[in-house]
C-alpha cells in the first residue's frame, strides 16, 4: 500500500512537471504566433506585452524554484552521505521490531506492515470519533437555542471553554486526569457484570463473537443479507413515494437482515460462538472478547469533546441561517420541538452546515495525530517509534505526510460527494 502511494506521488510529481513546462512552452509559442499574425500598429513592444512579461516572470520563478531546490537537494545529499543515510525505500521490508497491544502485528513484521497497521488504527479513531462528534456537536448546537435557561447556559459554557483550549491540552488532560488516574488499575479492574463488562485504566473489554466452522461462508451470507436489506429498504421507500402507504423501511430492513442471519446460523450449525474476555492469574484482561486500549479511548473521547464544540458553533450558525418563517410555519402546524428540528430546521440547516463540517472532519483526522502524546499506536506514533529504531527519518516523514494527505483527500472527496447530494438541484 505504501509503495503504491509512493508510486502515485511520483506520477503526480512527474505529471505536474510535464504540465507546467508544457503549458509554458505552449504559451510562448502561442504568444509568438499571436504577435506574428498582428499588424505592427496593433501590438505592444515585446517588453511591454503583458503576455511576454508573464512568461518572463514564470520562467524566472521556475528557475528560482529549481535553483533553490537543487541547492537544498545538494546540501541534503552532502549531509545524508556524511551520516551514511541511505535514501531508498528498501527499509520498508526490514523487520520493524514493533508490537501493538491487541493487534496481530508481531515483532518480526516489516516496517511497512507496522506503518499500515498504525494507519488502520488512525482510521478506526476517525470512524468512531467523527460520528460521535457530529452527534454531540449537533445536540449542543441545538441546546444553545433551548428555551431552558440552564441547558442554554451549560451548552454555551461548554462550547466557550473547550473551544478555546488547545486540543492537545484536552487530550493530555483526559488521558492523565480521567483515564490513567481516574480509572482502576488492571489488577483491580471494575467488573460490575463479571466478565461482561471490564474497565480498567489499561483496557476496556466486553464479550464478542468468535468464528467456528463455516465462519467464512457465514460472513459472505451476512454481507449478502446486508445488501438485500438495503435493497428492501430502498424498495419500501419507493412504495412509500408512489402510494403513500407507511414505509417502515427500518423494520423491513432489519427484519430481512436478521431473518436471513438466523436461518443461516441454524443451517450452518452455529458458525459463531461467544468469546468472553480471558483474564490472567492476576485478574488482567489479556485475550479474547472485544478489547479497546485505553489510550485509543482517551484520544477518541478527547477529540470528540474538542471537535464537538466547533461542530456546535457551525450547527448554531446554520440553524440561525434557516429562515425564521420556516420555524414559525412548523409551529403553526403544531409540530413538536423534535419534529420541528427533525423535519423542518435541521434538513435545511445541514445544507448550509456541511461544507464547514467537512473541514472540521479534516481537522479531526489531522488532530488524531496528537495521539503521539499519549501513546496510542496510530500512524504518527508508530513512525515516531521507528525514528527511535534508527530507521531513516526523511523517508518516514515523507510517508507520514503522504498517508495524511491521502486521508485528507479521501475524506474531502467523500464529503464533497455527500455535499453535492445534499444541495438543492438548481436549474
Amino acid at each position, binding site marked *: 500500500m505504501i509503495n503504491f502511494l509512493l508510486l502515485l506521488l511520483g506520477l503526480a510529481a512527474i505529471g505536474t512537471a510535464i504540465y507546467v513546462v508544457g503549458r509554458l512552452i505552449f504559451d510562448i509559442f502561442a504568444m509568438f504566433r499571436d504577435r506574428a499574425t498582428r499588424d505592427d500598429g496593433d501590438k505592444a513592444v515585446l517588453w511591454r506585452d503583458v503576455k511576454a512579461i508573464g512568461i518572463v516572470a514564470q520562467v524566472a*520563478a521556475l528557475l528560482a524554484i529549481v535553483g533553490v531546490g537543487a541547492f537544498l537537494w545538494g546540501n*541534503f545529499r552532502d549531509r545524508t552521505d556524511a551520516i551514511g543515510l541511505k535514501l531508498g525505500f528498501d527499509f520498508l521490508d526490514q523487520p520493524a521490531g514493533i508490537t501493538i497491544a491487541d493487534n496481530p502485528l508481531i515483532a518480526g513484521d516489516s516496517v511497512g506492515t507496522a506503518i499500515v497497521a498504525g494507519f488502520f488504527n488512525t482510521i478506526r479513531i476517525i470512524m468512531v470519533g467523527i460520528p460521535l462528534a457530529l452527534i454531540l456537536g449537533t445536540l449542543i448546537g441545538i441546546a444553545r437555542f433551548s428555551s*431552558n435557561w440552564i441547558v442554554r447556559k451549560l451548552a454555551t459554557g461548554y462550547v466557550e471553554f473547550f473551544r*478555546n483550549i488547545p486540543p492537545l*491540552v484536552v487530550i493530555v488532560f483526559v488521558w492523565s486526569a480521567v483515564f490513567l488516574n481516574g480509572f482502576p488499575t488492571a489488577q483491580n479492574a471494575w467488573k460490575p457484570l463479571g466478565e461482561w463488562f471490564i474497565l480498567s485504566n489499561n483496557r476496556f473489554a466486553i464479550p464478542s463473537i468468535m468464528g467456528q466452522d463455516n465462519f467464512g461462508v457465514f460472513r459472505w451470507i451476512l454481507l449478502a443479507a446486508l445488501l438485500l436489506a438495503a435493497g428492501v429498504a430502498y424498495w419500501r421507500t419507493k412504495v412509500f413515494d408512489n402510494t403513500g402507504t407507511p414505509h417502515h423501511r427500518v423494520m423491513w430492513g432489519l427484519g430481512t437482515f436478521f431473518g436471513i442471519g438466523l436461518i443461516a446460523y441454524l443451517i450452518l450449525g452455529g458458525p459463531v460462538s461467544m468469546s468472553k474476555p480471558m483474564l490472567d492469574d492476576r485478574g488482567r484482561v489479556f485475550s479474547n472478547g472485544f478489547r479497546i486500549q485505553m489510550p485509543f479511548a482517551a484520544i477518541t473521547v478527547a477529540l470528540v469533546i474538542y471537535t464537538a464544540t466547533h461542530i456546535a458553533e457551525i450547527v448554531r450558525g446554520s440553524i440561525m441561517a434557516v429562515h425564521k418563517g420556516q420555524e414559525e410555519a412548523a409551529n403553526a402546524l403544531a409540530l413538536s420541538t423534535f419534529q420541528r428540528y427533525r423535519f423542518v430546521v435541521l434538513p435545511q440547516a445541514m445544507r448550509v452546515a456541511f461544507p464547514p463540517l467537512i473541514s472540521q472532519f479534516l481537522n479531526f483526522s*489531522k488532530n488524531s495525530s496528537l495521539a503521539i502524546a499519549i501513546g496510542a499506536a496510530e500512524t504518527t506514533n508508530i513512525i515516531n517509534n521507528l525514528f527511535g529504531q534508527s530507521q531513516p527519518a526523511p523517508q518516514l516523514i515523507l510517508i507520514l505526510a503522504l498517508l495524511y494527505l491521502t486521508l485528507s483527500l479521501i475524506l474531502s472527496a467523500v464529503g464533497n460527494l455527500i455535499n453535492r447530494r445534499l444541495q438543492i438541484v438548481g436549474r
Partner: protein
Amino acid sequence: MVDKAANYLGDDIMSALAVDSTPPSAKLSPGDWMKKNLFSNAANSIVSLIVGLAAAALVWFGLKWIINADFAIIRANLRIFLIGQFPKEELWRPWASAYVLILGAGLMTGAMARNSYELDISQELEPVKESWGQMVRRFWPVLLVSIFFVSFARTIMPYIGLAAAFVLIVVTRELGWRMPAAVRQRALYIGVLLFIVSMLVIAGTSRLGGYALGLVVFIWMMSELSQVETLPVGFVGTLVRAAIALVIAAAVAVIQNLIPHDGFGWENWGGLHISLFTTVVGITLGMPFGILLALGRKSNLPVLKTASVIFIEFVRGVPLISLLLFSNLMLPLFLPIDFERPADLTLAIVVITGFSAAYIAEIVRGGLQAVPKGQTEAAQASGMSAASVQRFIVLPQALRAVIPAMVGQFIALFKDTSLLSIIGILEFLRVSDTSNAQQEFVGKGLASVTYLFVAIGYWAFAYTMSKESRRLEAKLGVGHR
C-alpha cells in the same frame, strides 16, 4: 451640498420611523423569570431539575477538588510556567520587556482609538470614546488570569509589578490619546518598534533584532519620504528614497549593536512567553507569504498558480505535528554542511511561518473573492497597472474583510503552539510535564493540577481574542454591507 441635503432628508425619515421602535421593557420578577425560563412545562421542569442537579454536582465536586488540590507544584514552578528557565537575578529583563510592550501597546491603541474618534467627528458621525469599564469588560479574562497567575507568587514583588503594569496601561493609553496628531498618525510604527525593543530587552544585543529594527525603520522611512515633495518622482525618486531610508535603518541597526548588553537568546526562552512569541512571529512572518500565495493562487500564470496550489494544499493536508517533526529531523539536513544546527525554536518558527502562510493564504483568497469584480475593472479602466490595482484597490478591501478571520487564525496558531511540546521545546504545556518530573513532585499524580492551570492560561488568551474577533466582525460589518 447635494449629498448633505439627501442625508438630512434620509435622517428625517429615519428619525420618523425610529419613534417608539423599542419594545416595552420586560422586567420579570424572579418568580416569573424562573417560570418562563426553567419551568415552562412539565418536560422542561424535569430537564431543569436533572441538568441543574448534575451541574450543581459538577460545581460541588470541582470546588472540592480545587480546595483539596495541592498547588505547591504551581507555586514552585510559576516562573518556569511563565518565562521558562530564566535565571533569578535576571528577572528584571522580562519585567522591563513587559513594561516596554505595554508602553507600545498603550500608546498605539490609545492613539488609534483617538484617530478613529477624530475620523468620526470629521464625518459627522457620533464619536464614542470607550470607557475603562468597557475595556475591562472586553479584556476581563486576561486581567483575571494575570491576577490568578500572580496569586501563586511567593514574594511580594510580582504583586507590585502587576499593579504597576495596570497603572502603566491606563497612563500610556491616556497618553496615546493625548498625543499630537502628527505623532498619532505614526502610532503603528511606534508600537511595532517598541515591540521589537521589548524583545531585545530580553534577548540583549542580537543581529536578528538589528535586522528586525532596521526593516521596520526602513519601511517607516519609506512611507515618510514618500510625502516629501522636493525629492524627484518616478524610478529615480524611489531609488533616492530607498537609499536615504537604508542609511537611516542601517544607522539604527548599528546603534542597536553598539549598545552592549547581554541577554538570553530564544534557545533559553520558555513557558507562556514562548507560546505567545511564536504565535506573534508566526502570524507576522506568515502574513506577507500568505498574501503572495493567495495572489499566486488567483493568478492565471500556470507556474505561479501550480506552485501556490501545491504548497497550500500540501501544508493544509498534513497535520502540524508532521511538519514539526520535519523541522526537527529534516530541516537541518537542508543547510550547507558547514552550518551549525540552529536552535530548535528557530527551525520550528521556519515551519510555523510556512504553516500559517498556507492558512492565511486561504483566508486572504476568501477576502479577494469578496471584492466585487467591478472594483478591479474600474481600476483598470482608469489606467492603473496590474500591481497598482492589487496594491491600492483590491488588497486593502480584501484584507479589511478578513481581519476577523485573521484573528481566528491567530487563536488557532496560539493553540497549535502547544504542539511544540512534542518536539521538546519548553513551552507552556511542556512545563507541566517537566514540573511533574521534578524530584519533589514526581509520582504524586499532580498532572491534573498543572494541566488545569495550563488550560486556564490558554483559555484566557484564546477566549479574549475570540471575543475581540466577534467584536471586530460586528464593527467592520463584514457580511452586512
